């Protein structure tokens, strides 16, 4: 908007004094007899902010405020009569809009006894419309955004504009361009476009965002800028499911857990896999039931575009340690608003002797057993020793009832069902001839026996 500014002091009968200004931003310019609004395209408004300030200390009253002239209007004008306190001011707009070309349009603004002349011109230009899906069309004015439908990142939507020449003469759109990374159009239309009288051309603009969020751009036609706006949404992640490398979970194992997606993901998001464990036995919590990668029962994963599974620190699965306690293990995966669950039962089982180490002294044997009982119900342990010929060393099976010892141990242990048991066997003479041993455990869920261990 262009304006030529001049200054005029308006003397009022009541001796109050008003000054008239045009306002641009925070800048005031005094107005004299003529205000030139400048030149615009047909269909596009020119507008000036007019401020009337009472520079005296007395009350001033405006009784007349009118504007006469084709295409000119007052906007936000006060109701009359309007009183202005001393040192106060009021603002309103003078607006010019013409649908047809005009070289010198004039209007007279009257404020009480004072007249200010406004001038403006309109150049014949095409009118821009936005075609709606129902076939109707909405006129677009420069500076007012055209909104595109919310579109998933990576996909596209489009809107069709209509550049219409409503005039009886040909008009030219000299330079047409679309700005903004997310907005595309057929650039073959970019050159000067001559529109015959009463004709129109379609312009299709595609909204194709690469990332999510609010996207802005603009369609510019000569000096007019029509903002474009669209919101790019993140694609919904696929529904997850939990996959475990073993069909049946047993204690003392590390298994692999994966988060499978029902389709290759187009989304990038995060998720969390956690486990809950309900022991089948009483006693302290088993700290061995966890995801070793985090030393906890929770682990984060990401769902990445192009991947059919969740990624744990870049890996397509993570390790789950089942611990050494019988019970129900529940896995829960949360991602993208979905929750997937899988429940596994770890059955109570006979004692597992993972390692047996035999130390032979001159007249003593020491047997060190590392193992676990996931039911925490050991009842009895038996040992058998054999000489180099495979003959059992007397007195044969040496049995110990261990239920009480283990009960006490498991009341305070901090490692689940694991234990290390040292058994000491004094001998009546040298143990040099002892060459092998067998160990057998019995608990509430059965008997387990090691193979014959040679040493």
């Amino acid at each position, binding site marked *: 908007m262009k304006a030529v500014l001049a200054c005029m002091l308006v003397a009022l009968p009541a001796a109050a004094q008003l000054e008239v200004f045009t306002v641009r931003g925070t800048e005031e310019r005094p107005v004299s007899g003529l205000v030139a609004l400048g030149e615009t395209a047909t269909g596009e408004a020119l507008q000036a902010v007019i401020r009337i300030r009472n520079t005296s200390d007395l009350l001033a009253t405006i009784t007349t405020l009118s504007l006469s002239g084709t295409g000119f209007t007052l906007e936000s004008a006060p109701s009359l009569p309007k009183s202005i306190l001393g040192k106060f001011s009021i603002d309103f707009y003078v607006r010019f809009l013409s649908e047809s070309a005009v070289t010198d349009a004039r209007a007279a603004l009257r404020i009480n006894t004072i007249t200010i002349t406004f001038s403006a011109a309109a150049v014949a230009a095409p009118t821009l419309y936005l075609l709606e899906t129902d076939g109707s069309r909405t006129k677009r004015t420069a500076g007012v955004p055209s909104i595109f439908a919310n579109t998933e990142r990576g996909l596209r939507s489009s809107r069709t504009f209509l550049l219409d020449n409503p005039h009886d003469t040909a008009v030219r759109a000299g330079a047409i361009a679309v700005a903004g990374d997310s907005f595309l159009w057929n650039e073959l239309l970019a050159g000067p476009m001559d529109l015959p009288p009463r004709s129109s051309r379609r312009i299709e603009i595609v909204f194709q965002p690469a990332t999510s969020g609010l996207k802005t751009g603009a369609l510019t036609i000569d000096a007019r800028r029509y903002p474009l706006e669209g919101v790019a949404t993140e694609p919904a992640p696929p529904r997850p499911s939990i996959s475990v490398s073993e069909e049946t979970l047993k*204690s*003392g*194992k*590390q298994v692999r857990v994966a988060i499978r997606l029902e389709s290759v993901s187009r989304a990038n998001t995060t998720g969390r896999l956690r486990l809950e464990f309900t022991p089948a036995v009483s006693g302290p919590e088993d*700290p*061995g039931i*966890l995801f*070793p*990668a*985090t*030393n906890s029962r929770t682990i984060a994963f990401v769902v990445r575009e192009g991947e059919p599974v969740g990624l744990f*620190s870049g890996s397509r699965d993570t*390790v789950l*340690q*089942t*611990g*050494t306690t019988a019970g129900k293990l529940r896995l829960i995966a949360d991602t993208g608003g979905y929750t997937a669950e899988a429940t596994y039962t770890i059955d109570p089982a006979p004692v597992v002797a*993972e*390692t047996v*180490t035999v130390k032979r002294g001159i007249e003593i*044997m020491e047997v060190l057993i*590392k*193992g*676990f009982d996931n039911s925490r119900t050991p009842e009895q*342990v038996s*040992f058998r*020793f054999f*000489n180099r010929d495979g003959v059992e*060393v*007397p*007195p044969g099976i*040496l*049995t*110990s009832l*261990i239920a009480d*010892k*283990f009960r006490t*141990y498991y009341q305070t*242990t*901090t*490692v*689940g069902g*694991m*234990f*290390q*048991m*040292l*058994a*000491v*066997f*004094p*001998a*009546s*003479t*040298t*143990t040099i*001839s*002892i060459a092998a041993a067998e160990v057998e455990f019995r608990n509430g869920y059965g008997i387990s026996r090691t193979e014959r261990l040679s040493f």
Partner: protein
Amino acid sequence: MMLPLLLLLAQSGLDLPPAGYFPARDGRIYPLYGMRGNLVLGEPLEEGVTSAIRMDGVTAASSAAGVRVGGEFIGAEQLRENRILTPRIVWLAEPARLAERKPRIVIVAKADGVWQRIEYEGGTLAERDRQAIAAGSAALDSDGRLWTASERTVSCGERTWEMETAVETLHALSEGWVLIRAGERLYAAQCRHADLTVVPEPEP
């Protein structure tokens, strides 16, 4: 005349199954318990401890300030020479580390930027031999077996593993366990088993 051999089950005791101490990625030294497929982390030792060893029920822990053996503290200035701390634990001044005392003490350590196999006489702790090891990382397990790692390959002599990423360190525990740090994961391996157990580790 030889007496017939007769065994009696005199006693049995229960305890947590220890696997050793190791430096975690949060900079603390942790005790590790368990077995193949199930390892459990204990509470970390006090901050500043750089290594620890446990023998015959006694824990020795070294730090920049010195070594604590059970309830006794030995300052760094007193550890400038090889020293017997307990009947089973020794301090080797160069390279500075705790070790199990045996008739012949063999350690693998990095000295002057090169991995070396160093042998000491168990009685006097005098150095007897020193040989370079061509490897990116090396460790001697508790059975005396030399482990080496170069890039992604780990070998204990009779067995080899190909890790997903390059191996950064090897660290020996007890009972033949060796910890393999490769990428973001820490694995425990024993030469007699092909499978690896992922070691729980606190997030740094």
